[in-house]
């Protein structure tokens, strides 16, 4: 699409559903777990059998309040409603949700760039079952039949609704990333978009620059990753701008994002807009957490991502480079900053610990539990002293994580990672130089970047045992002595 996009502003509000990390469902004692055999975690309550009654899970309320407080919301007395609709993902034919009185309201989220996005509300509701559409390409309309697994039905959710304060796909991405960091940091949700425990819908509209009225919005669904979120918003904004430029009108509707085709398509039209006939859930009483409970939740929150990033930045000496700042963001988002803090406390350089945490540890999160923080810290120190090359240090960290061993010195010894003496390095460098006289000549004439070529050669010859810094030092020494 090529349209004049510069004279328009995109306005975005996001609705984020996140599953809470409780042991059980919101209104019954069935386990809240992902990936079980279908229909194995079900009971009369989450199947909506006659005579069953819901009872609210206090831990779900606690986690909802954590989210609310982390998002600077007011916690108010709230109540539950029935949202009525006919769709087999809820056996009851209604979903219990919060309507006019949400538990959390009027908050905001501050993004790493300093911009602020208002949070209208963050309310409790139950998740639906999982429907699988069979035949016809797996879409609901073309399917021959559908299969339902009610394991997820009744899992506690908090739906976080933002104000229409977001102005670009990139800012929407930053908002969702920051929100995910907060959910993980507060242990309220695992924030896994790929497993569906965090799901994002985007309300997108456009308006001429300078306009104060909002344009007609479309709700875009099926955004399963940060990448699809930004792509879908950019596509949808361009689509709406093109409609307006062609003199057509944007229809208020729900649209489905298709990752493969990179486009959105209409799911249902305005005429079929839903009338959910909300009414107060007669089987549940009001929820009014007292001040003592709210205060104890506030106390248990711990430092939020913004403060944890600031801590890492201060360990880096206060002015991190761009790539270092990316590492800081990733490390806090993945909840790995404790490794860096511990390593720095033990005397390891923070920048190196940060690099190893945000790359080597982050790429193997499933094995994080096996990693002893003290062993990590020792490995980083061994690398910074030059006892291990960076290739070797990475291999030691991988070994610590896969085996749960806590003795990096012994791991390095078992792998044959003896530190190479200066003498050996000098031998290897001399060999590399004699094998590549052309490159050596160019290096001598000032082509500094050829040092990478020689590092590569030495690394290959020593199978990664040499330390790159030592190789560079030896190259410099050699070239200086030849110049004499």
């Amino acid at each position, binding site marked *: 699409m090529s349209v004049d996009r510069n004279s328009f502003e995109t306005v975005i509000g996001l609705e984020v559903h996140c599953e809470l990390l409780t042991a059980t469902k919101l209104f019954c004692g069935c386990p809240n777990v992902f990936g079980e055999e279908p229909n194995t975690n*079900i009971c009369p309550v989450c199947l909506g059998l006659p005579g069953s009654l819901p009872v609210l899970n206090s831990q779900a309320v606690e986690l909802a309040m954590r989210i609310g407080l982390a998002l600077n919301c007011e916690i108010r007395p709230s109540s539950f409603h029935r949202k009525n609709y006919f769709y*087999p993902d809820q056996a009851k034919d209604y979903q219990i949700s919060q309507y006019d009185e949400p538990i959390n309201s009027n908050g905001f989220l501050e993004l790493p760039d300093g911009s602020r996005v208002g949070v209208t509300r963050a309310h409790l509701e139950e998740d639906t079952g999982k429907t699988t559409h069979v035949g016809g390409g797996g879409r609901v309309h073309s399917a021959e*039949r559908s299969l339902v697994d009610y394991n997820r039905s009744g899992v506690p959710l908090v739906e976080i609704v933002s104000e229409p304060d977001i102005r670009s796909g990139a800012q929407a991405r930053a908002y969702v990333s920051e929100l995910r960091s907060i959910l993980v940091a507060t242990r309220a949700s695992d924030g896994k978009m790929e497993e569906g425990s965090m799901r994002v819908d985007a309300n997108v509209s456009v308006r001429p620059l300078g306009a104060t009225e909002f344009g007609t919005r479309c709700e875009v669904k099926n955004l399963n990753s940060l990448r699809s979120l930004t792509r879908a918003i950019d596509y949808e904004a361009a689509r709406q701008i093109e409609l307006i430029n062609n003199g057509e009108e944007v229809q208020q509707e729900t649209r489905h994002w298709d990752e493969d085709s990179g486009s959105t398509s209409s799911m249902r039209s305005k005429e079929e807009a839903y009338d959910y006939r909300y009414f107060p859930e007669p089987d549940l009483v009001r929820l009014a957490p007292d001040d003592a409970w709210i205060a104890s939740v506030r106390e248990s929150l711990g430092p939020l991502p913004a403060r944890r990033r600031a801590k890492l930045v201060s360990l880096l000496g206060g002015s991190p480079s761009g790539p270092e700042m990316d590492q800081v963001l990733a490390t806090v988002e993945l909840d790995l900053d404790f490794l860096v803090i511990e390593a720095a406390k033990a005397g390891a350089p923070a920048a190196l610990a940060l690099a190893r945490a945000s790359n080597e540890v982050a790429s193997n999160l499933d094995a994080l539990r096996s990693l002893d923080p003290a062993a990590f810290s020792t490995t980083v120190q061994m690398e910074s002293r030059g006892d291990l090359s960076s290739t070797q240090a990475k291999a030691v960290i991988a070994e610590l994580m896969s085996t749960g061993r806590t003795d990096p010195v012994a791991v390095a010894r078992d792998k044959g990672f003896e530190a190479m003496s200066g003498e050996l390095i000098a031998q290897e460098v001399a060999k590399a130089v004699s094998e590549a006289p052309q490159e050596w000549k160019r290096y001598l004439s000032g082509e500094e970047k050829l040092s990478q070529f020689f590092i590569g050669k030495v690394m290959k010859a020593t199978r990664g045992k040499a330390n790159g810094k030592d190789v560079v030092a030896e190259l410099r020494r050699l070239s200086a002595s030849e110049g004499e």
Partner: protein
Amino acid sequence: MKLSRSEVVHVANLARLDLSEVEVELFTEQLGLILEHATDIGALDLDGVEPTARPVPQENVMRQDEVRPGLDRRDVLSSAPAVESNRFLVPRIIGEEP
């Protein structure tokens, strides 16, 4: 308060009820009477009276987050009209996703 015919048709559609012409007439009349009865409350002076959704003045009824045994899948699925791959089989969905 008078209920219109089209309101009854709309509500019947939301509830997926297939009403005959005669039934629409009948229910427009009957539901209208019920609503009319409720409008008697409108005659009262209710300024300063909080809306009441529940008759019991009780709050914060909760349970601990502890797993309790549920139902056996075989038992549950044996009472389902149709089953495929241990899931409830439902006919083609004609309506919309919520």
